[in-house]
C-alpha cells in the first residue's frame, strides 16, 4: 500500500476517533467523500478500535518461552497420550489426554507440574490413593497421578466440559429458587467429601462446572493441599505481591492468615459463592484494591448483605456494564431489582452471612446444616441463621471499638436528641429531636427504659470506672432483648439506638439496627402495620448516611407506597419520607425528581400544620436546598430569605433551625459574590445567637464558624478565616472525638481553603488526615470519601504532582459513579478537574473529551447555568493552551456573566 494512502487512512481514523462513537458512521462517509475503498479501510480500523479486547494492552506474557520444555501433542505420559493443550496457569500446563493402553477410550485432563521438588513427587504418589477413593457423581475425582520419565509430577482427572457455576446461572437466567437448587447439589458433593475427611480448600466458581445438560461437577478436591502442604493453612501465600495469580477472593480469614484449615474454610467459601450467585457481585473485590487491602477486608470488614449489594451500583469508570448494574443482575435472575432486593433481604441474607462469619466456630458447623437452612427457606419454614444475628453484630461492635470514653452526656443527647449528620441537613435536626421526644413521651415503657439505663450507668458499676457510650448501648441492647413480647417498644428502641450509633458516626451499625427494627415489625405484624412507616423512614436515612443511595431509595419508596396502599389523607410523617426521598434523589443525580418530591412534601406539610409553622418552613428550606443543588442560586437565595423572615416571625423559633436558615442565606450570598458585608453580619449574628443561646455544643455553631470563615476569606481576611476554620476542627474533635465523619468534614474545609490560597502542600496533609478518618468511619466507597479525594487531587495538582493527582481524581470519579451514577453534578465537576489535570499534562485531546462529557452531563440537568459557565471557561483555557484560538473564542462567548 502506498504510504501516502496509508497516511490518509490514519489521519481520517484519528480525526474520527475524537468524536463520540455514535457520530462515527456519519463522520466516516463525510470524510471519505464517496471513496468506498478508503471508507472500508478506515472503517476496519474503527471497528477494530471499538472491539478490541485488551489483549495487546498488557505486555506479553512469556511463560511459553520460560517453560522451556514442552510436551508436544502425541507424546505419552504414563498411560496417557496427550491430545492438545487446553490451558496454562500458574502451576503448569493442562492437556486433554486419553488412555494410551487401549483399555478404555476415556478422556482425561492431565496436568504436568514443572520443576517440582522431591517432596511434591512423593506426595503426589502417596495421596493419589486417598483422593482416588472419593467417589461421588458430582465430584470429578483424581484418577491417577505420578511422575514423568524426566521427573515431573503429573495429575490426572476426568475431563469435564462445562461453564463455571456463576456464568452458567446467569447465562440460563436461573431464578433465585433454581440457583438454590443447583447450589444444594454442590453442597451434597462437598458434604460427601467432608465425611471422607477431604477438605477442598479452594472452592470457587471456576472449580464448580455445570455442563450444558445441567450436570454439576466439582473439580480439584484436595489438590490445593496436595500441591501446597508446607504452607500449612496458607494455600494463598498472600504476603508476596508477585503471587497475584492466586486471588484469595473466596478464601476465608483463617486461610489468608495462614491458620489451621478445617471444613469451616470450605463452608466460608461456599458462603462467598452463594453470595455471588444471589447478589451478582462478590462481597469483596480485588478489582481496584491492592492485595493486602483485600486481605485486610476479608479479615476485618463485614460485607454488605447480598440484598444491599445486589442493588448497589458497582464498577469502575470504564467498566459500567449493564451486566453488573442492579437491573442487569436482576434480569439475569429473571426478576426486577426491587423484587430481588426484597427476596434476598431477611432469610437469604442471614444464611449467607452466617456461612461467611469471620470466626470459623460461628459459621454453620456442617455443610449439612447450611443445606438444611436453605431447604427451610425454600419450604417457607423459619431459618436457623436468623436467631442471634443481632447479638453477633453487637458483640462484634464491642470488640472492634475500643472507643475512648465519651461523656455520658453525649449519650443523653444522642438517645433523646437524634441530630442528623450532614451539614445541609442541620435544619431538620431540631425537628427530629422534637418528634423523637414526642414519640418517647407517648410510650411510657420507652421513657422508663431510658431512665433505667442511666440509673444503672454509674461509673462505679463499670470496669475501669468510666461509662462509655458503648457501655450504655450495650446495656440498652440487653434491656431491649428482655422486652420479648413487646415488639412495638422493642422496634422503637432499636430505632433510637440506630440513631445513637449514627450520631457516633457508626453508620454501618446504625443501618443494621434500623433494619432489625423493620424486620421485627414485619415478622410480628406483616407488612402493613402503622409503626412500619417510621421504621422504614429511619432505615432509609441510615442507608443514605451509609452511602447506599440506591437501597435508601428503594426503602423510602416502599415507605411512601405503604401510605398509598392504605389510602386516606397522607399523614405528616409522609411529608418527612418524601423530603428524605428528595435528598436521596439529589445524591443519585435526579435533580428534577427531587424537586417534585420536595414540592409534594411541602403540600402535605401545609395541609397538616398550616403555612406558618416551623415544620412547613423547614420543608420549604429543603426545597430551597434543592434549588441550590440545581445551580438556581437566585431562586434558592430568595426562598431561603423567605423562610428566614417567616421563621423570625414565629413565636419562639428554634435557635438551631433559625441559625441554619441564616447560614444558608450567607452561603448563597457568598457563592454569588453578592453583598459580602451583609453576609458577614448575618454569619456573625448566627454565631452569636448560638453561642449565647445554646453554647458551642450546638452542631450549627461549627457550621457558623466555617461559614463565617469562608466569608472572611472572600473578603480577603485570610488570617481570621484560617483561625475560624481551625477553631471549627477543634470543637468538632472535642465533641465527637478524633475519628468522626464531621471532623473529616471540617478538616476538608480547612484543606480546601489552603489549596485555594497557595498552600497546597499543607492542604495535602490535611486532606490525608480527612481521608484516614473517612476510611475508618464511612469507608472507602462513600461519597464523602470521594469528595475528600477530589480535594486532594486539586492539592496535588497545585503542587505540580500531576500524575498522582490524575490517579486520585480517577478513584474519586470511580466511587461517585458507583455510588451515585454517572450523570450527576458531582461527576461533572470531577470530570472538569480531571480535564484540568490532563490539560496541564499537555494531553489536550483527552482533556477535551472529559470536558465534553462534563458539559453533556450538566446539559441534561436542570438549572446548571453557573456550572455550564465554568465548563465553558475551562474549554477556553484548554483551547488557549492548545493553540486553537477559534475554538477558544466560540466557548468564550458561552462563558456567561458570572465569569
Amino acid at each position, binding site marked *: 500500500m502506498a504510504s501516502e494512502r496509508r497516511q490518509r487512512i490514519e489521519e481520517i481514523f484519528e480525526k474520527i476517533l475524537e468524536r463520540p462513537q455514535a457520530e462515527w458512521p456519519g463522520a466516516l462517509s463525510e470524510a471519505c467523500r464517496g471513496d468506498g475503498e478508503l471508507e472500508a479501510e478506515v472503517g476496519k480500523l474503527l471497528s*477494530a478500535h471499538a472491539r478490541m479486547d485488551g489483549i495487546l494492552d498488557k505486555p*506479553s506474557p512469556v*511463560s511459553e518461552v*520460560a517453560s522451556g520444555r514442552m510436551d508436544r*501433542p502425541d507424546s505419552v505420559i504414563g498411560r496417557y497420550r496427550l491430545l492438545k*493443550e487446553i490451558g496454562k*496457569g500458574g502451576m503448569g500446563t493442562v492437556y486433554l489426554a486419553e488412555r494410551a493402553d487401549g483399555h478404555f477410550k476415556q478422556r482425561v485432563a492431565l496436568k504436568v507440574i*514443572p520443576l517440582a521438588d522431591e517432596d511434591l513427587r512423593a506426595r503426589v504418589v502417596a495421596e493419589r490413593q486417598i483422593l482416588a477413593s472419593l467417589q461421588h457423581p458430582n465430584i470429578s475425582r483424581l484418577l491417577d497421578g505420578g511422575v514423568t520419565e524426566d521427573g515431573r509430577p503429573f495429575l490426572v482427572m476426568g475431563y469435564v466440559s462445562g461453564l463455571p457455576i456463576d456464568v452458567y446461572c446467569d447465562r440460563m437466567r436461573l431464578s433465585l429458587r433454581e440457583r438454590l437448587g443447583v447450589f444444594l447439589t454442590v453442597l451434597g458433593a462437598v458434604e460427601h467429601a467432608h465425611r471422607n475427611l477431604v477438605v477442598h480448600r479452594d472452592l470457587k466458581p471456576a472449580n464448580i462446572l455445570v455442563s450444558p445438560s445441567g450436570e454439576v461437577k466439582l473439580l480439584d478436591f484436595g489438590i490445593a493441599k496436595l500441591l501446597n502442604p508446607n504452607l500449612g493453612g496458607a494455600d494463598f501465600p498472600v504476603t508476596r505481591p508477585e503471587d497475584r495469580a492466586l*486471588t484469595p477472593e473466596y478464601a476465608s480469614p483463617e486461610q489468608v492468615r495462614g491458620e489451621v484449615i478445617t471444613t469451616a474454610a470450605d463452608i466460608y467459601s461456599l458462603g462467598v459463592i452463594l453470595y455471588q450467585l444471589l447478589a451478582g457481585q462478590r462481597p469483596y473485590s480485588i478489582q481496584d484494591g491492592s492485595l493486602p487491602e483485600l486481605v485486610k477486608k476479608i479479615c476485618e470488614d463485614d460485607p454488605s448483605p447480598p440484598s444491599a449489594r445486589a442493588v448497589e451500583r458497582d464498577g469502575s469508570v470504564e467498566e459500567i456494564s449493564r451486566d453488573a448494574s442492579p437491573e442487569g443482575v436482576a434480569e439475569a435472575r429473571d426478576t426486577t431489582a426491587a423484587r430481588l432486593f426484597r427476596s434476598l433481604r431477611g432469610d437469604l441474607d442471614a444464611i449467607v452471612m452466617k456461612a461467611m462469619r469471620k470466626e470459623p466456630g460461628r459459621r454453620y458447623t456442617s455443610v449439612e446444616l447450611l443445606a438444611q437452612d436453605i431447604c427451610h427457606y425454600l419450604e417457607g419454614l423459619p431459618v436457623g441463621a436468623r436467631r442471634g444475628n443481632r447479638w453477633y453484630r453487637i458483640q462484634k461492635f464491642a470488640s472492634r471499638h475500643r472507643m475512648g470514653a465519651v461523656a455520658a452526656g453525649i449519650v443523653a443527647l444522642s438517645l433523646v436528641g437524634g441530630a442528623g449528620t450532614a451539614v445541609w441537613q442541620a435544619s431538620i435536626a431540631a425537628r427530629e429531636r422534637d418528634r423523637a421526644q414526642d414519640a418517647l413521651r407517648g410510650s411510657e415503657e420507652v421513657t422508663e427504659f431510658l431512665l433505667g439505663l442511666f440509673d444503672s450507668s454509674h461509673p462505679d458499676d463499670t470496669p475501669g470506672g468510666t461509662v462509655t457510650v458503648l457501655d450504655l448501648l450495650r446495656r440498652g441492647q440487653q434491656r431491649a432483648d428482655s422486652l420479648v413480647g413487646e415488639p412495638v417498644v422493642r422496634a422503637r428502641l432499636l430505632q433510637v439506638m440506630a440513631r445513637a450509633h449514627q450520631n457516633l458516626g457508626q453508620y454501618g451499625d446504625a443501618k443494621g439496627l434500623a433494619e432489625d427494627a423493620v424486620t421485627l415489625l414485619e415478622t410480628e405484624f406483616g407488612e402493613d402495620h402503622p409503626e412500619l412507616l417510621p421504621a422504614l423512614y429511619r432505615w432509609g436515612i441510615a442507608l443514605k448516611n451509609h452511602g447506599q443511595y440506591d437501597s435508601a431509595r428503594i426503602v423510602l419508596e416502599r415507605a411512601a407506597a405503604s401510605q398509598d396502599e392504605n389510602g386516606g389523607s397522607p399523614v405528616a410523617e409522609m411529608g418527612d419520607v418524601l423530603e428524605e426521598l428528595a435528598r436521596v434523589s439529589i445524591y443519585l443525580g435526579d435533580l428534577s425528581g427531587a424537586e417534585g418530591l420536595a414540592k409534594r412534601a411541602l403540600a402535605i406539610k401545609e395541609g397538616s400544620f398550616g403555612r406558618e409553622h416551623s415544620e412547613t418552613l423547614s420543608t420549604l428550606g429543603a426545597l430551597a436546598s434543592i434549588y441550590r443543588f440545581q445551580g438556581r442560586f437566585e431562586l434558592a437565595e430568595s426562598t431561603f430569605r423567605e423562610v428566614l423572615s417567616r421563621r423570625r416571625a414565629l413565636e419562639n423559633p428554634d435557635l438551631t433551625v433559625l441559625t441554619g436558615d441564616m447560614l444558608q442565606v450567607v452561603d448563597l450570598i457568598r457563592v454569588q459574590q453578592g453583598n459580602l458585608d451583609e453576609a458577614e453580619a448575618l454569619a456573625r449574628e448566627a454565631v452569636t445567637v448560638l453561642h449565647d443561646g445554646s453554647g458551642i455544643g450546638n452542631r450549627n455553631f461549627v457550621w457558623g464558624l466555617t461559614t463565617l470563615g469562608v466569608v472572611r476569606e472572600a473578603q480577603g481576611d485570610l488570617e481570621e478565616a484560617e483561625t475560624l476554620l481551625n477553631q471549627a476542627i477543634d470543637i468538632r474533635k472535642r465533641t465527637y472525638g478524633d475519628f468522626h465523619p464531621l471532623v473529616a468534614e471540617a478538616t476538608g474545609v480547612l484543606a480546601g481553603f489552603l489549596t485555594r490560597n497557595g498552600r497546597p502542600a499543607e492542604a495535602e496533609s490535611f486532606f490525608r488526615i480527612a481521608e484516614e478518618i473517612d476510611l475508618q468511619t464511612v469507608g472507602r466507597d462513600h461519597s464523602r470519601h470521594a469528595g475528600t479525594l477530589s480535594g486532594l487531587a486539586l492539592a496535588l495538582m497545585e503542587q505540580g504532582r500531576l500524575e498522582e493527582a490524575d490517579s486520585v481524581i480517577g478513584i474519586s470519579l470511580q466511587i461517585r459513579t458507583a455510588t451515585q451514577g454517572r450523570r450527576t453534578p458531582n461527576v461533572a465537576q470531577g470530570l472538569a478537574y480531571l480535564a484540568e489535570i490532563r490539560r496541564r499534562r499537555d494531553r489536550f485531546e483527552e482533556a477535551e473529551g472529559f470536558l465534553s462529557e462534563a458539559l453533556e452531563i450538566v446539559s441534561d440537568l436542570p438549572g446548571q447555568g453557573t456550572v455550564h459557565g465554568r465548563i465553558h471557561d475551562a474549554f477556553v483555557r484548554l483551547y488557549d493552551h492548545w493553540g486553537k484560538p477559534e475554538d477558544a473564542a466560540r466557548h468564550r462567548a458561552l462563558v456567561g456573566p458570572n465569569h
Partner: protein
Amino acid sequence: MTSDHRSTPGEVTRLLSEARDGDDLALKRVLPLIYEELRQLARSQVRREAQGHTLHATELVHEAYLKLSVGSGPDAKNRPHLLAIASRAMRQLLVDHARSRNAKKRGGEWQRTTLADGPMIRELAPEELLTLDNALKELDPRQRRVVECRFFGGLEELEIAVALDVSERTVRRDWVKARAWLYSRLYPEELDQPTPEG
C-alpha cells in the same frame, strides 16, 4: 547461539552507545547479545513460574537491562534506549519460539478445566504471534518501535518517548493507530461490518 557469544557488560554498554550514535553495525552486534541474555533469563525463571507466578515480558526486559548495565553506572539516557533494543530482542525471541511450536489454538469457553490453578492467562497463541509479527512489518518504522517497546518490552510511555526521541503524545497516538491496525490483522473475522455498532 550459545553462551560463548555472551560478552561483558562493559562491551554491551560501549556497543550500545555506538548504536545510539547511528552505527548500524554496532546495533547488529548488540542485538544478539541481548537476545541471548533474555533467553538465559527466561530459562532461569522456570522456578518462579512453577510457584504460580506468571512471567511478563516487562520483567525479563528490565532484568536483562539490569544485568547488562552493571558496571556502566547509571545512565539516564542509556536506559530507555537499551530497554527499547531489548524489547526488539524480546519480540525476536517470542517469534522464534512461536515458530518452533506448532500448537493449536486454545479451546473455547465450553472446554474449560482446571487443576487447582490460578486464573488462566490469555496469551497469544503461536500462530497469532506469527500473524502479529507479519502485521508489524507493514507498519511504519516508528509505530513498529512503539509496539515493540510497549507489547514486547512493557515500557512506559515516557520511556518510549525518550528512547525514540519523540513526545509522549506522539507515542500515544502511534500506539492507538498501530493497535487498531494490528487488531484488524489479527482478527479480521470480527470486523465483518464496515462500521462498529454505536
